[in-house]
């Protein structure tokens, strides 16, 4: 009798493990497929020219997306400078002081913001920045993406901070360390690993956004170093090339997509490496 029960339990156990493995595989499959297909379609076009030249006029072959790569970098930098401090700041406020009514309101607003379609955010940035400046700009693009980063970072920061045990704060207070210093050097530092992950996730999320950039950064066929001028961005460029009638531009779109994914993965890895060394021994 026991033997039969054991067999049945063992079978159930293996079944569930199998199902979980299968589910994992099914999730990784499209990811692998996408990446594989991108490599297949795009690797051929990834060459030095592509990475260093700006687009050629429509109809001509050759050229590259150098300006789009740089432009994306610029826009994402602006977005991070806006989104990360605001996101972390909001998260800190909610975790340390947000137990009352006002905190609840902010949390709710952030959640709603998270669900707003990116194109709507683009329109908001358009009306706030573009109309005011009377032209498209990298700044407007950065604002749009920055706004999108805030709720993701804020929610994760709050959760990570709440996970820091109260005993650590008490230890710090007991030493006569003021509240603000405790939050900065003890609480945030303990939660830093999780917060960095959240920052990276939000970065990856907005790096590929196209819609908000449509009427903020707008795109540019040439080099641009001025944040107040229309700027090229990888997703925009990919989009434009993908819907163009020219085959050569299609080819470049594939390469652009591949490079976009690669750059995101590389930057995430870099952040992870730098942060993990900094977390333990890092500065005070």
């Amino acid at each position: 009798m026991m033997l039969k029960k054991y067999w049945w339990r063992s079978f159930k156990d293996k079944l569930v493990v199998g199902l979980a493995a299968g589910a994992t595989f099914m999730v990784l499959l499209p990811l692998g497929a996408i990446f594989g297909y991108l490599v297949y379609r795009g690797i051929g076009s990834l060459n030095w020219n592509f990475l260093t030249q700006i687009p050629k006029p429509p109809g001509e072959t050759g050229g590259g997306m150098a300006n789009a790569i740089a432009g994306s970098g610029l826009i994402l930098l602006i977005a991070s400078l806006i989104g990360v401090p605001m996101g972390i700041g909001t998260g800190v406020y909610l975790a340390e002081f947000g137990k009352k009514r006002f905190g609840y309101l902010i949390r709710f607003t952030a959640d709603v913001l998270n669900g707003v379609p990116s194109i709507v955010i683009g329109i908001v940035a358009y009306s706030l920045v573009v109309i005011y400046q009377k032209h498209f700009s990298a700044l407007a693009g950065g604002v749009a993406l920055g706004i999108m980063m805030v709720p993701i970072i804020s929610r994760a920061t709050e959760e990570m901070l709440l996970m820091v045990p109260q005993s650590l704060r008490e230890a710090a207070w007991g030493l006569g360390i003021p509240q603000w210093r405790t939050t900065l050097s003890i609480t945030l530092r303990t939660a830093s690993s999780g917060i960095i992950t959240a920052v990276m996730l939000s970065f990856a999320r907005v790096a590929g956004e196209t819609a908000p950039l449509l009427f903020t950064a707008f795109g540019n066929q040439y080099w641009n170093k001025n944040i107040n001028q229309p700027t090229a961005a990888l997703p925009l460029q990919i989009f434009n090339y993908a819907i163009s009638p020219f085959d050569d531009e299609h080819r470049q779109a594939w390469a652009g997509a591949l490079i976009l994914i690669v750059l995101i993965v590389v930057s995430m890895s870099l952040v992870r490496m730098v942060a993990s060394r900094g977390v333990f021994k890092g500065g005070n």
Partner: protein
Amino acid sequence: MGVGIQVNQLNAWFGNTHAVRDIQMDIPANHATAIIGPSGCGKSTFVRCLNRMHETIPNTRVQGTVKIGDTHVYGNGTSAVEIRRRVGMVFQKPNPFPTMSVYDNVAAGLKLNGYRNRRELDEIVERSLRQAALWDEVKDSLKKKSGASLSGGQQQRLCIARALAVEPEVMLMDEPASALDPISTSKIEDLIFELKQNYTIVIVTHNMQQAARVAEFTAFFLIGNLIEFDKTEKIFTNPSDKRTEDYITGRFG
């Protein structure tokens, strides 16, 4: 050098719960005073009123006066942060900062208050670790080992070193050895014996034998009230109050 603590009509509340009632007590300098009593009698709350940690919990209230040396703890001009620098605290569960090395943990109270002199910090860290009887065990890996990678007993001694580094006058210990094995406990008790010479120590403990081993004076608390405060030998051989006697002979609690 330690200072005495005078507590006058101290009351404390958690919301509407009157946790500490009319405590009148003079804690002598450079001695260890133990606070014993059954669970929920207010001993931890009382001790946390001495260094203004009680008010960090929302919805709490304190009334009455506490004087540490010449300073009024709840005086108008006194900042809580300032008091907490002069009164060190060690908690029941060791709580070293996990993201910091042993060195940084001990130096935390100084570094995070702006103290930067490298050489002096080194000296203070060594002195504090020696006082906490931890120096020999960690001196070779001060900056390599994280605070959280030590054993339980070592972690607690690290927390003691950390508290000593800011040179308080009073050390409050809330059941410092209750989470530790007998050997670590006995090291900590030896430590308290040494520290008494330079600090005033208040130790909350569930373990009456520990109070008897370590403290010259003992206070018995019951439901927020101070029932009896006397020399430890008297409390444990011939207490004046029947409730004290019933508690220490195990007839309740």
